[in-house]
């Protein structure tokens, strides 16, 4: 049994009204603990709906979502499920509850009913993990987008979940902020063994994951390891491959022997090797 499982899940927004939209159609996928997963697709492909289905913010109309064996449809399990899977959303401004940063990071542990000392320990640890400890007594509105998202991540970390979902968490950030978040996420997966599920439309971010799921129009069209990123089916659905892959293709067409690459760094290595 996998850590997170989607079993034939469907979900419709505004069901039974004239504006009904079937966002997710018969989706099945499995995520193991420790995985670094990317879920890619256009806006409107259903990927953000998947994020909310994972921790029971939305309940499937058909099929089942289970986290560590517990079903999200079971109201009594929701608390446990949310202890295990945290979500960092897209808008840095709309996730903070408190006027002081350390109070905001404490929000999660406070909801868990932990002792004040334990909460303090977790808040300090979480803020240090995202390199925002020195800002702990400050207010959110003076921070940059990247900093706010780091605080949001700290807020989720403080709950000590086994998995973290990043729902397009970098799409409203500038390049500096994006890099900050990607570095932290990478570190969490490698060092803390946290299961990371990155929902994104940036193919170069997807290239950093080990397992990739591609969605279009509510359906899963591809899943697998990084090789998925160069599958021709992507182009058929209007998705690009990562730029490094495209350039590699161009070089192969020109007769060069370039191995499997997905990031600019890997490509540079291969080019040097081949010359």
């Amino acid at each position, binding site marked *: 049994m996998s850590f997170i499982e989607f079993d034939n899940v469907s979900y419709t927004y505004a069901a039974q009204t004239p504006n009904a939209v079937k966002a997710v159609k018969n989706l099945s996928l499995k995520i193991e603990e420790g995985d670094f997963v990317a879920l890619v697709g256009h806006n409107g492909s259903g990927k953000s709906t998947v994020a*909310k289905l994972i*921790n029971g*913010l939305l309940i499937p109309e058909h099929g089942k979502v289970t986290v560590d064996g517990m079903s999200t449809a079971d109201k009594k399990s929701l*608390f446990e499920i*949310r*202890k295990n899977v*945290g*979500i960092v*959303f897209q*808008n840095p*401004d*709309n*996730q*903070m*509850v*408190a*006027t*002081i940063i*350390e*109070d905001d990071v*404490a*929000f*999660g*542990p*406070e*909801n*868990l*009913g*932990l*002792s*004040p000392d334990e*909460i*303090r320990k977790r*808040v300090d640890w979480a803020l240090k993990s995202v390199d925002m400890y020195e800002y702990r*007594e400050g*207010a*959110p*509105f*003076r921070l940059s987008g990247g900093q706010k998202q780091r605080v*949001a991540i700290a*807020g*989720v970390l403080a*709950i000590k979940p086994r998995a973290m979902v990043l729902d397009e968490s970098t799409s409203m950030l500038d390049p500096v902020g994006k890099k900050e978040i990607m570095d932290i996420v990478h570190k969490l997966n490698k060092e803390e063994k946290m299961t990371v599920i990155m929902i994104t439309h940036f193919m170069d971010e997807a290239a950093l994951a080990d397992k990739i799921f591609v969605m279009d129009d509510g359906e899963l069209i591809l899943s697998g390891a990084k090789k998925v990123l160069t599958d021709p089916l992507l182009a058929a659905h209007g998705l690009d491959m990562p730029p490094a892959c495209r350039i590699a293709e161009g070089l192969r067409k020109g007769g060069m022997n370039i191995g499997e690459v997905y990031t600019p760094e890997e490509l540079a290595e291969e080019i040097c090797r081949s010359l």
Partner: protein
Amino acid sequence: MRDVSMGQYYPAKSGVHKMDARAKIIFVIAYIVMLFFIPTVDGYLRGGGRLGGYIVSAAAAFGIIILFLITAIAFSRVPVLKVLKSIKAVLALVLITAVIMIVFYGGEANHVYWSYGIINITLEGIISGSTMAIRLFLLVMGPSLLTLTTTPVELTDGLERLLFPLSLIKIPVHEIAIIMSIALRLIPTLIEEADKIKNAQKARCADFDSGNVFKRAKAMIPVLVPLLVSSFRRADDLAYAMDSRCYRGAKGRTRMKVMKLGWRDLVGLVLICITFFGVLMFVYDYFGVAGIVTNWAYSVIA
């Protein structure tokens, strides 16, 4: 980047900052109540007092309260100017009302300087206007010192705990407290957003500055509607985020920052009691102190 400093928190490590928020809130309430224990000139005279007696009692009572305020400000390490700044908001209103009171005074008066129709400039009127102004200024400075020395979180926490008994009769105290706390958190964000929207509409030649009150109000619709719409979206997002972080209301919720009454609160209690007693002493002439002082004052003047 606007700096919203209306009674905004002023960070410092002072005794007052470290006091329990619940105690501070109760002290401010007591402070406000005290201010209204001091009678008006009219009330005092009608009660059979002499004007001289009123001047002495009121001056002494206000004096004690001002002493208390100064002590509190000193212990709080907040610059006096910051506290005085809170008067700015009501300055115009209070002064205008005071002037109106002085010019059109209608209470009992024995020392009339100039009278014509409804215009009635008297000593009593001047004193009445002055005491009203002093009372209102002091009224504004007390709560201002409270918000300067207490973070919004502490305030809402303190209120939530003070109002706890109400939750026993099914009033949703925790929910109200968290609503207030989130509202406070969002104020600077909303102001910033309103500015952005305003600029966007200005770029389309919207005019916010000319025309009468009605025209200007109507001109704000292109700012208020988007702000409202985005606020609903924001509320949705925030609700999802809170749920995701295991929020389930007050059930089982603990706090990182614990409120504990300490010796500082005891000191505050003692000071407030002394002040209260002093005020009452002069207002109700306990031990005849007010009477003695008044007679001595008259003997000196006459």
